[in-house]
């Protein structure tokens, strides 16, 4: 039996990992629900954001957060362009899975071309910084990631619930024709969702650069667990994503502490299957 300290530290790192999962999954969930696009290239966008953060921050000695401010509009534009392409070629939900699988492979190749397959690590000073709280260590970069995930999740929730645009998105996802008959501009709304979703990938990318070592093949490392988080959280439900991220993050961390790290991936998928059996019809 591990010590209370170890358990506490595992719990903390699980909570923080949950924040990262929620941050990575938020945009995926929004575009799945409101655009009916299952966007695998979201993971490519995240790593594009991560590598750009790494490159610009390293080359110009800038704060990664300053770089993030430039990445957000860039990724927004990329998301809008991608959605315009989907509309142009009338890509449906299942087709989007195939098309974006191709896109993520292209992004991976581009990243490999520019940055090679070597591991890259952003030396920002945040990576190793941590605070001591009693017997526990709080890593600053991970804590910031968690904070941003919560802020973005709450902002998305509030926007969907309290603004006319958010309500229009929900209405349009349910019945596009009826939403149009009441004045909703579905196409421009879809571009807004796509751009916002890609922008969150850019933000997530900066935090991936802060907390992880980058390699092109890592793009695929998170897909499984993030899909579990997105489906468990309920499509288009930002608070659900936060809760699911925390649940999976904490379960994984405790599994690692109590058994061995190799069991961790099993946990997320067991939880996912349990949710799908107990509450079918979530997708």
């Amino acid at each position, binding site marked *: 039996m591990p010590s209370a300290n170890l358990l506490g530290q595992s719990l903390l790192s699980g909570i923080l990992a949950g924040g990262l999962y929620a941050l990575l999954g938020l945009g995926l969930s929004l575009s799945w629900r409101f655009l009916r696009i299952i966007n695998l290239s979201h993971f490519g966008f995240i790593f594009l954001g991560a590598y750009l953060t790494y490159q610009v921050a390293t080359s110009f000695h800038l704060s990664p957060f300053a770089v993030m401010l430039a990445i957000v509009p860039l990724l927004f534009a990329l998301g809008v362009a991608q959605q315009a392409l989907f509309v142009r070629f009338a890509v449906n939900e299942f087709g989007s899975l195939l098309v974006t699988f191709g896109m993520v492979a292209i992004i991976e190749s581009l990243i490999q071309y520019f940055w090679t397959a070597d591991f890259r690590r952003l030396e920002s000073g945040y990576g190793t910084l941590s605070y001591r709280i009693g017997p526990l260590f709080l890593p600053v970069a991970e804590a910031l990631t968690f904070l941003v995930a919560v802020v973005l999740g709450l902002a998305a929730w509030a926007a969907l619930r309290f603004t006319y645009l958010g309500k229009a998105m929900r209405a349009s996802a349910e019945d596009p*024709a009826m939403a*149009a008959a009441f004045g909703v501009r579905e196409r421009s709304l879809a571009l807004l969702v796509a751009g916002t979703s890609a922008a969150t990938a850019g933000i997530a990318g900066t935090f991936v650069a802060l907390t992880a070592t980058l390699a092109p093949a890592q793009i695929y490392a998170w897909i499984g667990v993030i899909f579990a988080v997105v489906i468990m959280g309920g499509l288009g439900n930002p608070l659900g994503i936060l809760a699911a991220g925390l649940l999976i993050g904490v379960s994984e961390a405790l599994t690692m502490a109590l058994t061995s790290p190799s069991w961790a991936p099993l946990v997320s998928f067991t939880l996912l299957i349990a949710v799908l059996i107990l509450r079918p019809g979530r997708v």
Partner: protein
Amino acid sequence: MHVAYGDAPALRGVSLRVGPGELVSVVGPNGAGKTTLVNAILRLLPIRQGTVRLGGEDVTSADARAMRLRGVALIPEGRRLFATMSVEENLEMGCYPPSARRYRDEGIARVYAMFPRLKERYRQQAGTLSGGEQQMVAIGRAMMARPRLLLIDEPSLGLAPAIVEQVFETIRAIHADGLSILLIEQNAARALAIAARGYVLEDGRVVAEGPARALMAEPQIRAAYLGEGDAADPREGGER
């Protein structure tokens, strides 16, 4: 208003008009093209041929959103509420265009005065309401748009007779406030009873039109749609 809908099988050269403050009913059997007509007016379906005019303006090239902005609102067949959204959110979609939002509070107060039941349930998901309550939301949502032309498609569909009675009473009350209404209804006796004029639609064509009273008096129509005054089941004679 004049609607013609090209060579598509659904509507073949239908022409009708609704005057200011007039309540006009379109009756006919299942599959006559009644809902197609509504969808064509709102441009949820493309019009192949013909023109749509609204108060003298040619709006044939407008889209659904443009029709909404010009004051056309719909109470659709089967209600089609935004089922996972609350009652109040559904009503708010009625005043979605930015120019309409300043009437939100006033409109919601008016709808709640008309249907106190909705006020009690304003946070409830619309999909969990009873059929009659859902119809109230659908009516309220359309009224939030402060329309100058209200399209009502099969308001009695799937509702209990007592509720249908209330719904028609509400339509009569709304019309008494001076609203122009185009009422599409399979239940011909009821629809013609509250209308000034009527059209009978069959197989995508207008086969009879005129003052509602005159239509109701015509023996052929009585036989086909009014089935000896048996208003509860007008389908019998309609399908051939």
